[in-house]
């Protein structure tokens, strides 16, 4: 098998996997959250799981500074 063909196949595999990821991501986003779980983003009152700053718990640093 030539190098060019291998490269084309490699790009094809990556594109296929990327397409799979994009489709699953869109399906995940479109699936409605169960009742009571609609707002599971950062929440100062509820998000006390790890008390470290992350995109889910942006209040950790503020808490320390207060």
């Amino acid at each position, binding site marked *: 098998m030539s190098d060019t063909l291998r490269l084309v196949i*490699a790009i094809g595999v*990556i594109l296929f996997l990327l397409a799979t990821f994009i489709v699953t991501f869109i399906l995940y986003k479109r699936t409605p959250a169960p009742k009571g779980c609609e707002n599971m983003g950062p929440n100062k009152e509820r998000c006390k799981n790890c008390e470290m700053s992350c995109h889910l718990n942006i209040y950790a640093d503020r808490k320390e500074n207060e």
Partner: protein
Amino acid sequence: MNTTPYIYTFLLAIISSCLIDNVVLSRFYGICPFIGVSKKVKSAFSMGVAVTFVIILAALICWPLYHFVLLPLQIPFMDILTYILVIASLVQIVGLFIKKFSAPLYQSFGIYLPLITTNCAVLGVVQTNTDTALSFGLSMANAIGTSLGFLLVIVLFSTMRERIEEYNGNKAFKGVPIALISAAILAMAFMGLMGIGAK
């Protein structure tokens, strides 16, 4: 056909990757959730179960993908990129099913599930399985043992941290410093298991 040696090897591989060659304490994979999500036992257990689930599924999918797609197509150099995309898609699919069919599970896993995509323990297990040319059975044993090891260690560590929180000693040690020292002691305790089976 006598299957006893196979079962024995399978169980030995699980115990070995769970206790002796622990993914967190001897290979230092998955340190981020180990430190970040181990402050409370409940959240540590949720994270551990979610990681267990994803590691086993990822090993189940990636082994055939490597041996029946990447190797025959002569593109084994694409392994890491492929695994990353497979794991990311897998996490989305698992999340989707949980979101759709199990509200209680979504409530407990919900915020931890997307974080697993960035857990290098998952990628590490899959990569080890193909790098060391393990058979499918042993790959699954490695995946099961590694994930159980992760679950065990994160829950053990969270129970330690819950008690350490009550410590009122030197301020310099409070928080992360004492957590890291505890992790080191835990790692040393696990190192004691390395002699098991040695003749």
